[in-house]
């Protein structure tokens, strides 16, 4: 190796170390603090590894219910709705010869980019209020489905467009009903796409904080990201042992799903999609 190549190699290594530290250091606390008996904001390798904090969480029925019932209900319900409705809609848009398909797609992107975040929550909250859906799982799930559907339809459209029509046409010729064609021909081929969509919708709903914060009122219905803010002492100081352990438990499903998708399909870009949620 000549001098120039060595020089470039060193620059490269320095850059990689810097980038890795930048992305790794801020979340080290999340993996270290939960296993320390006296968690502080300091990141240390705990001298005695303890699972006491996790035991404390599993004894706390409110915390367990938030994570293992409420969060799963909300994320699962959203996942189911988004996957079903987006697949049906994307299939219909793709297989229907209709003018204005592109306009529909155009408006979909436009509205979903405009109606987002806290701005969208102002009218949506009032809407839920008049629909009597405040403080209900359904309220949260409906708003999440509404927010995720546009991106979901786009994601699914790519998969449906890549599906050759000849399979469906031959099924139609043999006398099958369009619904049967959809169920028995299209769905089995679209399954990988639906899996990706389902995982994406689950992760978006699982991580969302703003919607349940605004919509859910009673502690028994709070999902994990809202419930975690009750781990404070009466004086208002956070109980870091519980918060760190709970944060880790709450983050683990996302890590597992990421690894699963990465291993199964490779984590890549499906049409330039980032979930916005709301």
């Amino acid at each position, binding site marked *: 190796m000549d001098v120039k190549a060595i020089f470039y190699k060193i620059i490269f290594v320095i850059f990689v170390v810097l980038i890795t530290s930048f992305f790794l250091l801020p*979340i080290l606390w999340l993996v270290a603090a939960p296993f320390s008996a006296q968690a502080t904001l300091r990141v240390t390798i705990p001298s005695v590894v303890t699972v006491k904090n996790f035991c404390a969480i599993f004894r706390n029925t409110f915390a367990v219910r938030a994570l293992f019932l409420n969060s799963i209900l909300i994320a699962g319900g959203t996942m189911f709705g988004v996957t*079903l409705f987006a697949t049906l809609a994307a299939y219909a848009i793709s297989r229907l010869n209709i003018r204005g398909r592109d306009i529909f797609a155009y408006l979909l992107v436009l509205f979903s980019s405009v109606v987002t975040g*806290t701005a969208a929550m*102002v009218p*949506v909250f009032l809407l839920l209020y008049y629909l009597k859906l405040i403080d209900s799982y359904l309220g949260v799930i409906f708003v999440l489905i509404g927010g995720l559907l546009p991106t979901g339809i786009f994601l699914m459209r790519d998969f449906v467009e890549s599906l050759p029509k000849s399979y*469906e046409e031959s099924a139609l010729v043999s006398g099958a009903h369009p619904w049967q064609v959809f169920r028995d021909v299209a769905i089995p081929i679209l399954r990988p796409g639906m899996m990706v969509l389902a995982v994406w919708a689950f992760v978006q709903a699982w991580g969302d904080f703003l919607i349940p914060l605004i919509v859910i009122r009673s502690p028994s219905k709070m999902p994990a990201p809202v419930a975690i803010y009750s781990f404070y002492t009466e004086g208002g100081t956070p109980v870091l042992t519980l918060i760190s352990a709970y944060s880790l438990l709450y983050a683990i499903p996302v890590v597992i799903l990421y690894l699963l998708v990465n291993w199964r399909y490779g984590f890549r870009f499906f049409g330039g999609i980032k979930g916005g949620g709301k």
Partner: protein
Amino acid sequence: MKRRDYVSILPRSVAFAFLAPAVLFLATFLIFPVIWVLVISFTNTALTGPAGTSPSFVGVSNFSQLFNFARWMRLGEFGNALVNTVIFVLGSALLGQVPLGLAIAMLFHKRRGLSRELVFSLATMAWILPGVAVAFAWIAFLDKDFGNLNAILSVFGISKIDWYFDFPLYSIILFNVWRGTAFSMLLFSAALGNIPPSFWETADVIGASAWQRFRDIIFPLIRPNLFTALILVTLWTFNVFTPYLITGGGPLYRSETVSMYTYRIAFKFLEFGRGAAVAVIMMSINFILATIYLSLQRRRSLYGR
């Protein structure tokens, strides 16, 4: 056009039945709210007090309150939040995420192996982990006495910095660069992968320098993606709420962005009229950004890219 293009796999009635649930949700939770928020912004709607039972029309007073230039730059007012948002978006999206994402994508363009896997996985984790969990980790990271950041800086002889009190806006900018770089990284990485290999071979043959390769091959070919990234990242950063979990907009509203301001007015003060007025302004800005994005996309498809 070939005849078979007109063979419809779905009869219209079935297709509309398939579309119905999605259309119902989109109409209720996307289209209706836009119209309604406009109406509310001209009223004094609230959930409590006299206005709670019968909101009345107040004209443009919600808007004129927001743009009351005598006081709008005071901490906690709309102007302050707007200026903070501009700095936040410029710093974290335009100067942070997009250049950093491009740099990482270029660096690992033709490399495979452990270092690439490591950097890509960590950046993606930062992007997809739940906001609440990473917010607590960042509170710990930025802590004055125990935080990792100050611990590392002390190695270089830099004394303890109180990030939350002295640099709240820079703290959330740093956080947002960390949080969102993965999108630009993945986008540019895919774009670079689409550059035909013959371009690189030609560059090798003529012995082009790294800068020449960037200027003459990479930049012209990824320019459309660059604009896409800039617009989308600006749009998302403008609406992002997660930094609220780190600073709460504080101390004394010094890191309050427009999205946090909307939350405070509508959901803490429960002044929905005024909250709706801010929401209308936010949605108008979103509308402008989305229209630019869509016209860029359309021009791209015109050229077949």
